[in-house]
């Protein structure tokens, strides 16, 4: 009798686990949870966990619960592949990652190879923030889907705005030294050159990715160049510390950024005292004016204690659900097919589409500036009392760019 009880005690939990594994959809979240990218990586993890909870409360996807598995890749492509393999071995069939296009390229390649070698055990890769254009052009993959606008799309919108700002005379480019940073600088040079040939590019800097702890030497150089505007694609601690050093040195320029809204950015901008002189380009922001997005933001902030940096994560998860329901299956192959050309009403309003040709999601894009809030703008950032204010909106149709992707379909 005793032996039997013991056996039951040992086996019963195993059965329970096996049953629950059948009923959950595991999403492997592979992003930095340590080092220089950790501040944004942890924010992303909390965002996805919140979204999973929210969905589970409403019955999950096709009756199955969603579980986010956080895996630390230290912003390192090699480490990411180890983590991805670990995730796949533990039954993960959907991977999401965002920080670092170098990581994204490695993961996309890895997932593609994995799917060729293991038919019937395909894995999908949902990219929520790695914006190197090559991921949806020459390096495109059928198994990779991107919800963030590519760097070329963002730069197109940013330079369109800069074109109509005559006060810009001297521009300084500072970016991280890897594929994404390099694509920002080349796009900026090319597009500014075409749209505003009179603008002088007085500096073009590449610095090591997430390694610099004190940007004052760089700020001194920007200052000496006489620039009136800085364009940067920096993210994570690289944007927060850059702005912090600018605040310390009292650098007064306009900042055109991709990610000034990330962890530490708003605090540093407030410290610079640059009221509505720091711009960022996103697919949505807290004060966008869309009622349902603002309601979501309010609940999100109360529950998670963070601003919603990634409206695209919301779009990603909700579209995943929509695609799974459309295919009536959570088989990655069927979900992938259902995602193609799927139209979707995005969080901040307006329709987006996951283009079949390159698996890039096209959506409305917003340029916003950071500063004192107007009466109808309820959300500030990091308790600074300042928040994001709408400057310009680009509709989906205008945000479309062409692709060179020749997709290899299974």
């Amino acid at each position: 009798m005793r032996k039997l009880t013991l056996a039951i005690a040992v086996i019963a939990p195993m059965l329970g686990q096996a049953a629950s594994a059948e009923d959950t959809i595991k999403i492997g979240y592979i992003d930095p949870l340590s080092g220089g990218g950790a501040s944004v990586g942890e924010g992303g993890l909390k965002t996805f966990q919140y979204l999973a909870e929210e969905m589970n409360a409403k019955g999950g996807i096709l009756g199955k619960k969603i579980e986010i598995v956080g895996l630390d890749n230290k912003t390192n492509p090699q480490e990411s592949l180890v983590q991805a393999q670990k995730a796949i071995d533990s039954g993960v069939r959907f991977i999401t990652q965002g920080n670092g296009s170098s990581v994204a390229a490695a993961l996309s390649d890895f997932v593609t190879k994995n799917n060729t070698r293991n038919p019937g055990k395909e894995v999908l890769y949902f990219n929520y923030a790695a914006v190197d254009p090559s991921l949806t052009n020459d390096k495109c993959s059928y198994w990779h889907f991107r919800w963030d606008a590519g760097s070329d799309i963002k730069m197109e919108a940013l330079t369109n705005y800069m074109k109509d700002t005559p006060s810009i005379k001297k521009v300084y480019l500072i970016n991280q030294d890897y594929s994404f940073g390099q694509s920002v600088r080349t796009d900026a040079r090319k597009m500014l050159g075409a749209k505003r040939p009179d603008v002088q590019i007085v500096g073009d800097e590449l610095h090591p990715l997430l390694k610099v702890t004190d940007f004052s030497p760089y700020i001194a150089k920007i200052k000496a160049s006489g620039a009136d505007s800085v364009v940067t694609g920096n993210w994570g601690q690289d944007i927060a510390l850059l702005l912090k050093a600018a605040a310390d040195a009292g650098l007064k320029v306009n900042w055109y950024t991709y990610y000034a809204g990330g962890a530490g950015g708003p605090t540093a901008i407030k410290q610079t005292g640059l009221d509505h002189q720091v711009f960022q380009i996103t697919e949505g922001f807290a004060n966008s004016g869309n009622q349902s997005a603002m309601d979501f933001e309010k609940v999100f902030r109360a529950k998670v204690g963070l601003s919603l940096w990634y409206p695209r994560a919301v779009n990603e998860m909700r579209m995943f659900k929509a695609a799974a329901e459309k295919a009536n299956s959570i088989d990655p192959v069927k979900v992938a097919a259902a995602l193609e050309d799927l139209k979707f009403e995005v969080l901040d309003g307006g329709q987006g589409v996951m283009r079949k040709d390159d698996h890039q999601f096209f959506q409305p894009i917003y340029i916003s500036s950071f500063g004192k809030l107007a009466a109808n703008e309820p959300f500030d950032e990091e308790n600074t009392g300042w928040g994001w204010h709408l400057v310009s909106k680009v509709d989906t149709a205008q945000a479309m760019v062409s692709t060179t992707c020749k997709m290899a379909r299974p």
Partner: protein
Amino acid sequence: MLELIVISTLNGVLFGMLLFLLSSGLTVIFSMMGVLNFAHASFYMLGAFFGFQLTKWIGFWPALVLAPLLVGAIGMAVERYGLRNTHKHGHVAELLLTFGLAFAIEEIVSMIWGKSPVDYRVPTLLDFPAFTIFSTNYPAYKLFMLAVSIVIFIALLIVLKRTRVGLIVQAALTHPHMVGHLGHNVGRVFMAVFGVGSALAGLAGVIAGPALVTQSDMAAALGPILFVVIVFGGLGSLPGAFIASLVIGLVQTFAVALDGSLASAFGPLDPSAGPSVLTDIWNVTIAQVAPIVPYLLLVIILIVRPMGLMGTRES
């Protein structure tokens, strides 16, 4: 241009002095005990995290005094109960001990404070621009860091050159056995030196924490540079470490400040204008090379002058 030079010099000297706070302890420990302390940068990190925690509890100024003392005490304990016991098994065992310690400290720190950066702020008393030079503000806190480093440097110099304690330490640097035979407790001297060296690293951590980033990989990021400094300056030489720290601080800062690439050195004959697989190499700027410059210096000095800048012996 002048503005850039002045600001870069200030920044370079500041970074150099910070390196000196760290390398002074490391180099003295090395020449006395023959142990290259791999955990030295970890003491720097401990200093920063203790500083952060104590600042939260009792404020920055008490933390500035207490945190280094705490780190010094840990350093002494490591020497007394760790290194002294492994000493009889030779240098390799000691080296491995400090190597393991570095990993252990990093893990413990990330277990307690997490892996992402902690919010360690500059004290409000020093959070203002000290002066404005060519319309660029220089933060008061950086000036404070510079002042602390210089005071420590002078104090260290006086203790080592002008006091009896310094006499014994200096003697133990070159002739530890002789000092022992003369009746001094060399073990206690070792322990004290190890403690002071660790405390200095801790102090560097406390003051650098708010200006740089306080996170669990800060030791790993700074460690290699420290070895460059002490090898470059000459193992065991304090003046050497001082000069090397300043040189590396300035070189790194100016490398960032300078534009120009191999290609631009040729002026109108720019070789990158022609199509070539080497175009990328021609166009790499000095700023992009900045992070590897110290290691390049290390290699060159080892080839040209293996004992280092001011070193007197080869090992």
